[in-house]
């Protein structure tokens, strides 16, 4: 059994750009309090922010659940959005289905999912078009001495 240090839930509302980034900032603050290495906090911040923005941009609503143990953080996003037709294609850098106004804001450049992939140790995406998307990732909080 791993010790759960902290867990929590955030509700994300579609197009709520006012609160976009709040969940990621709070998770970052918790990891800072725990004294987690800065390079690892950076990876968590990037992956969380990208996934949080994806939920807000594409889905009418979603839930973020996180669990932090002394060894890892697990973050899971569940949304009731349009879903992803082709996950392999969505993982390709530069591919995006974002509308123009989202691109004008500097989002939708097709870097979100690749950024999440690069900064996580485990990433699982499942999606059903027309129903929703589930994104979960795990980031180890201890620096791997062997790598």
């Amino acid at each position, binding site marked *: 059994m791993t010790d759960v240090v902290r867990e929590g839930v955030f509700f994300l509302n579609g197009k709520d*750009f006012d609160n*976009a980034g709040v969940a*990621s900032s709070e998770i970052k603050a918790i990891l800072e309090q725990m004294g987690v290495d*800065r390079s690892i906090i950076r990876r968590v911040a*990037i992956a969380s*922010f990208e996934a949080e923005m994806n939920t807000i941009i594409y889905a009418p609503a979603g839930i973020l659940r996180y669990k932090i143990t002394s060894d890892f953080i697990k973050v899971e996003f569940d949304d009731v959005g349009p879903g992803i037709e082709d996950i392999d294609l969505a993982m390709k850098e530069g591919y995006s289905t974002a509308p123009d106004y989202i691109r004008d804001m*500097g989002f939708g*450049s097709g870097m979100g999912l690749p*950024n999440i992939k690069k900064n996580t140790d485990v990433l699982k995406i499942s999606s059903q078009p027309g129903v929703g998307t589930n994104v979960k990732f795990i980031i180890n909080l201890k620096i791997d001495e062997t790598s």
Partner: protein
Amino acid sequence: MKLHEIVDNLSLEVKTTSSNLTKEVTGGYVSDLLSDVIANCHEGNIWVTFQTHQNIIAVATLRELSGIIIVNNKIPDPETLKKAEEKSIPIMVTPLPAFEIVGRLYALGLRCR
């Protein structure tokens, strides 16, 4: 280099009041794509952008940037300034385009690191 030295040298207009201009600027980054900035900037960088909306503050906070320079006489949204005050992220504006500002930052010794 301290942020206030950059503000003086480049005649930037500081739009936030609670800003800490004694922050050390480690280097610079220029981009209007938020995913690019969050992935590739470095802590303590000054960020040069055309974007004026409030989500730039989330990016700056998450990556602990030393400040944001908004170029081309663009006016930051009121929500952007409100969030910038809350999070103590200095917002500066300039009539110059990004190319000019980045060139001057480089001439002052800042690099992308």
